[in-house]
């Protein structure tokens, strides 16, 4: 127990003894995490936009003239169970007649003597799934029903939006991994400098009979503090910046940014600790071999 306290306080003291390294390690974690946080917020908000667009996707299915209302309702129920469909709305022949009347102010029965409007069904697509919604298979499936006369959908537009969104998500993920890797390298090189400066200490500890773990622990604990401080600074910057920028953004574009403060802080702290842990253990392990 006393040994743990000793190692812990050694880590804290190191933080102070190596002010310059501490500064650069904290600064690089801070930068990394600020970028990470911005990417997370950007991705999160883009997914909100995608959800909104998907909400607007519609597939319209027109049935043949002689299909009964009961059959239409039963078919709509079946469509609802197709993967990727969120909800269905049935428009029977008489519903269509009413819609026609409300839109054109004339009764279609008076105009042509019978109701030529087909029964139809509007399908809405699932909103919140991260991978692309595949419209093509749904359309093909709908077309296999003999009762179906015609299927209308905004195919080109949907596909284009989905493919842009996928590229965006992939790009962001790649960028994030790159930023994290670079910061691990920066941190481990920074910590290497402290280790060289501490060659004396390490040699003396080893000669006195310290185990590898004992030599390593203070450096790793020091690294965790770097990560934590960097994360806290990045959180302050992001949340401060967001609450400032939010008002401006909203008054200019009317868009509202979405983010979860607690989630953001915990992701940043977690990532900060992780990269500095990996960075500093890498450095010290390399040195001790």
């Amino acid at each position, binding site marked *: 127990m*006393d*040994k743990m*306290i*000793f190692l812990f306080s050694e880590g804290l003291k190191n933080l102070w*003894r190596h002010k310059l390294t501490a500064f650069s390690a904290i600064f690089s974690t801070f930068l990394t995490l600020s970028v990470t946080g911005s990417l997370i917020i950007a991705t999160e908000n883009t997914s909100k936009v995608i959800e909104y667009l998907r909400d607007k996707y519609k597939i319209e299915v027109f049935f043949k003239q002689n299909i009964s209302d009961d059959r239409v309702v039963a078919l709509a129920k079946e469509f609802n169970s197709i993967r990727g469909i969120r909800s269905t709305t049935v428009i029977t022949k008489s519903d269509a007649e009413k819609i026609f009347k409300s839109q054109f102010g004339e009764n279609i029965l008076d105009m042509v003597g019978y109701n030529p409007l087909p029964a139809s069904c509007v399908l809405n697509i699932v909103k919140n799934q991260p991978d692309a919604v595949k419209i093509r298979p749904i359309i093909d499936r709908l077309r296999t029903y003999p009762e179906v006369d015609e299927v209308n959908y905004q195919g080109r537009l949907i596909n284009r939006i989905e493919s842009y969104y996928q590229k965006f998500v992939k790009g962001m993920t790649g960028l994030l991994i790159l930023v994290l890797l670079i910061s691990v390298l920066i941190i481990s090189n920074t910590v290497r400098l402290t280790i060289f400066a501490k060659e*004396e*200490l390490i*040699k*003396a*500890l*080893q*000669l*006195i*009979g*310290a*185990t*590898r773990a*004992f030599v390593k622990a203070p450096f790793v604990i020091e690294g965790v503090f770097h990560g934590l401080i960097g994360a806290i600074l990045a959180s302050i910057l992001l949340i401060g910046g967001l609450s400032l920028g939010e008002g401006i953004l909203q008054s200019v574009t009317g868009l509202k940014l979405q983010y979860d403060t607690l989630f953001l802080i915990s992701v940043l702290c977690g990532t900060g600790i992780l990269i500095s842990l990996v960075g500093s253990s890498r450095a010290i392990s390399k040195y001790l071999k």
Partner: protein
Amino acid sequence: MIRLDNVSYTYEKGGGVSNVNLSLGDDEYAFLIGPTGSGKTTLLRLIYLDLFPQVGKVEIDKFKSDKIKRRKIPYLRRKIGMVFQDYHLLDDRNLFENIALPLHVIGVEKDEIVERVNDSIEEVGLEGKENHFPMELSGGEQQRACVARALVKDPDIILADEPTGNLDPVTSFELIKLLEEVNREGAAILMASHNYNLIKGRGHRIIEIQNGTVRQS
């Protein structure tokens, strides 16, 4: 029990020791005498496995240089109190903290650390200097700090490399007597020195080393 079996070690640029056969009992107090550059430090480094023999074998109790795993070396060194010729004191810690370090390494409780460190400081006569950093100690005081650090963990074996090199004759003599007392309490002692006058006539075993070769008395 220390045993060296036909041990040789040569540095890349020459120098070292060759064909050393030596054994030291658990309660022995021996001097390693030889001129500068004769291989005393090398021999001691071979015993605490800072160097590994290129030929032959070093054995300290159950630890054997040809069998020991790297991660077991710390446990060998915990049994040995070392007084280094170049001190290896840490500049950024005061005397007290320097001497406490081996106890932290072993995981001794805090209260016991305070007690044992104070005892060691007293034994080497450095009371009142606890808060001094190594740079704020004289050469001889640093040397005695190094002795205190070796004694503090109650080692089974003490390897002292020229521990009187920076001391005046009176203090040197006191150190020899301090080590005699530690020896009576059960620790084996091997002390390297080139000052024959200091050690002669005290009835201890003398091991002579010259040009890396050991001649025993």
